[in-house]
C-alpha cells in the first residue's frame, strides 16, 4: 500500500515537472529574464529567413561584438517562446493572429525584416523550363483537383504557343506545418472563392489532393522525381537549386516572373502603421503576387522579467541595423530587400518601443 502511494506521488511529480518542461521552456529559460550585462541576445522563430539572419548576425557580431543566438524552430515555436518570454525576440512569417495576440501577456510589435516569395515549381522536362505562365484560377484549379491534365484548355489559353503535354497534373505540397504553406494558402484564399470556402488559409491545411513532402527540399525532391508534378517552394530555394518555376499573372493582369526585384516591388505598397500586412495578391502592378514579409516580433514595453535597459537598447539597435545596413546581404542570398515603404514603417515601430515607458531609441 505504501509502495503504491509513493509510486503515485512520484508519478504525479514527474508529470508536473514533465509538463512544466513542455509548456514552460523551449530554449534557455534564463534568456529573456536575465538582467545581465552579458553580450548575447536570444531569438527564435521562422526557418525561412534563417540563412539571411545568420549572415546578418555574424556580420553584426564582427562589427559590434554582440552575439545573437537564433534558433530556427519555425514561426509557431518562435511565437510560443516569445509568449513564454524565453527569448528576446521572435520571428515569424505570418503576423500574430487574434488568438496568439491574446495569449501574450503584453502587446508585441511586428517589424518587417525581409521579404520572400513562394514559386510554383514543376517538372515537364527541360523543354518547358521558364516557359509556363499560370493564372490564379489555374493554380487554384490544380490544387483543388479540378484541373487534372497539363493540356487543360484553361492552361493552354494563357500559354499560347506552348505545346503542353497531355500528362497528369501531380500535386506536391508541404506535409509539415510551414510559413511557406501559409503564404501560399493565404494567396489562394484571397484569389479563389472555391478555395476560400473549402480549404482556407493556414500553415497546415487539409489538402484536397496531392502528396505531402517535408520541407522545401522534400517538395523539390518529389517534383524532380515525378513527371508532371507541380508544387510550391521558396523562391530562394528554387533559384539556388535551379528548379523550373512558373510566371504568375498578378492582380493588375501582368505576367510576373518571380525574382527578388518583383518581390521587393510587391512590398512597395502602403503598409499599415503596425506593419502587419499580407503581400499576397499585391496591388503593385509589377509585384509578384505570392510574396510575403517576414517579421521580427518584440514586446512593445521592454521592461519585463528584470531585463536591463542596456539589453533592450542593444536589441533595438540590432533590429534597426537589420532593416537598414543589414539589407545589403539580401540579394546575394536571394532574399528580397525591404521596400522603402516597409523600412519606413519599421523605423516608426522601432521608435515606439519603450523601456519603462520611455522610448528605447533616443
Amino acid at each position, binding site marked *: 500500500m505504501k*509502495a503504491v502511494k*509513493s*509510486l503515485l506521488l*512520484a*508519478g*504525479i*511529480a*514527474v*508529470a508536473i*515537472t*514533465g*509538463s512544466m518542461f*513542455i509548456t514552460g521552456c523551449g530554449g534557455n529559460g534564463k534568456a529573456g529574464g536575465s538582467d545581465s550585462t552579458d553580450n548575447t541576445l536570444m531569438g527564435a522563430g521562422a526557418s525561412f529567413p534563417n540563412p539571411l539572419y545568420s549572415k546578418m548576425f555574424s556580420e553584426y557580431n564582427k562589427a559590434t561584438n554582440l552575439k545573437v543566438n537564433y534558433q530556427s*524552430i*519555425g*514561426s*509557431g*515555436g518562435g*511565437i*510560443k517562446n516569445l509568449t513564454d518570454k524565453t527569448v528576446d525576440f521572435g520571428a515569424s512569417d505570418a503576423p500574430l*493572429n487574434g*488568438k*496568439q495576440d491574446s495569449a501574450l501577456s503584453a502587446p508585441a510589435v511586428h517589424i518587417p525584416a525581409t521579404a520572400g516569395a513562394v514559386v510554383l515549381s514543376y517538372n515537364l522536362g527541360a523543354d518547358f523550363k521558364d516557359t509556363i505562365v499560370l493564372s490564379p484560377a489555374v493554380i487554384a484549379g490544380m490544387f483543388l483537383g479540378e484541373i487534372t491534365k497539363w493540356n487543360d484548355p484553361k492552361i493552354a489559353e494563357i500559354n499560347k504557343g506552348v505545346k503542353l503535354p497531355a500528362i497528369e497534373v501531380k500535386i506536391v505540397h508541404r*506535409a*509539415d*506545418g*510551414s*510559413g511557406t504553406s501559409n503564404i501560399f*494558402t493565404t494567396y489562394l484564399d484571397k484569389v479563389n472563392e472555391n478555395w*476560400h*470556402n*473549402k*480549404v*482556407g*488559409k*493556414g*500553415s*497546415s*491545411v*487539409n*489538402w484536397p489532393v*496531392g*502528396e*505531402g*513532402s*517535408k520541407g522545401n527540399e*522534400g517538395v523539390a*525532391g*518529389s517534383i524532380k*522525381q515525378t513527371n508532371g508534378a507541380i508544387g510550391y517552394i521558396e523562391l530562394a530555394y528554387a533559384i539556388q537549386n535551379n528548379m523550373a518555376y512558373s510566371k504568375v499573372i498578378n492582380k493588375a493582369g501582368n505576367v510576373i516572373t518571380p525574382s527578388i526585384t518583383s518581390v521587393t516591388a510587391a512590398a512597395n505598397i502602403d503598409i499599415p502603421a503596425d506593419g502587419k500586412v499580407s503581400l499576397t495578391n499585391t496591388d503593385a502592378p509589377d509585384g509578384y503576387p505570392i510574396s510575403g514579409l517576414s517579421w521580427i516580433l518584440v514586446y512593445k514595453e521592454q521592461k519585463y522579467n528584470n531585463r536591463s535597459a542596456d539589453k533592450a537598447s542593444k536589441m533595438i539597435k540590432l533590429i534597426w541595423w537589420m532593416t537598414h545596413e543589414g539589407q545589403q546581404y539580401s540579394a546575394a542570398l536571394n532574399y528580397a530587400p525591404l521596400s522603402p515603404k516597409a523600412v519606413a514603417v519599421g523605423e516608426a515601430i522601432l521608435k515606439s518601443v519603450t523601456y519603462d515607458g520611455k522610448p528605447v531609441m533616443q
Partner: protein
Amino acid sequence: MNSSIDNPLITRSENLERVINYNAKSEVSVKTKNSIKRSHRQIKTEVVFRRTLSVIGWLMIALVIGILLTLIWQSMPSIKKYGFSYVWTQVWNPTASVVNPEVFGALPFLFGTLLTSFLALLISIPFSLAVAIFLGEYYPEGWFSNLLMNTVELIASIPSVIYGFWGLAVIIPILGKSIMTSSLILAVMIIPYAASLGRSMIRMVPANLKEAAYSLGSTRYEVIRSVIIPYVKSGLFAGVLLSLGRALGETMAVTMVIGNNNSFPKSIFSTGNTLASMIALELPEATDDTHISALVELGLILFVVTVVINLIGRKIISRYSNV
C-alpha cells in the same frame, strides 16, 4: 588463523567441509580484520545500495506513468472537445474554412501506423528467421558467421534518417511514395531485432534434445522443424514483438517515404501517414491550442497501442513458453 587442514584427527570427509568453512571464514576475516566497525559500514553500504536500486526501479515506473499522465493532461482539450469520435473520425483539418470546420480525427493515422508496422513485420519475418537459423544452427562460428552477424547488427545501428534517404533515392523512383514503400524500409530496419534474439535462443537449445532427434535418423531440416523451432518459439515471438515495437514508433524514415497524405489510405500502394510522423510534421508549427492537444492525443494513442500490443504479446509468450 587456525588452519584445520593440518589437523591429522580430522577425517577426509570432514576435512572437505572444513576446507570450505575455512575458505569462507578467511574471506570474512580478511574484511573484518581491523575492527568490528567495518561490518556496520558494510551493512550500511548494503542497505544504501539496495535502496538506491529500488529507488531507481521505482523511478523508472514513475517516469512511464508520468509520461502517460502528461500525455493525458496535455490532450485534455482535444479529448473534451471530440471525445471518442476522435478515434474513428477520418478527417484531419486544422484550418477551418467556410464549409469545412476545424476537426481532428486520428483514424487514418492509427490505421497507417498499424498497417505499415504489421506489413513490415510480415515482410521481415522470413528474413529474420532465416538469419537466426543460419547463425544459430548451421554456422554458429567462423569468419562468415561473424561477418553476417555484425552486418545484421549494423542494420540496427544505422540512423533511421539514412534509411529514409536511401528510400528516397532508391525505392521511390521504382515504387513511388506509398505505405508499401515505408513497410519495405521498416522491414529492413527491424530484421536485426528478431534475428539476433532468435539466434541466441536457437543456440541455447540443449544439445541432448537435438542429438536425440539425430540419433532417431532425423535430417537437419527435420531437427530444426520439429525440435528447435518448437523449443524456441516463445523466444522467437519475443524478438518479433521487439521488432514490432520498433516499427510502431519509427518516425523519420517513414515520414520521408510514406507520402504524408492525411486521408484514409485506399490500398497498401496509396500514400498515407502514421501517428508518429504526423506529430513530427505538424507539432513544430502548431500554434492553436486544440491543434496542439489533438497532436498530443495522437501520441497518447500511440502509447496505448504500444502498451496493448505488448500486453497481448506477453500473454502469447507466457502461454507458449517452455520455461
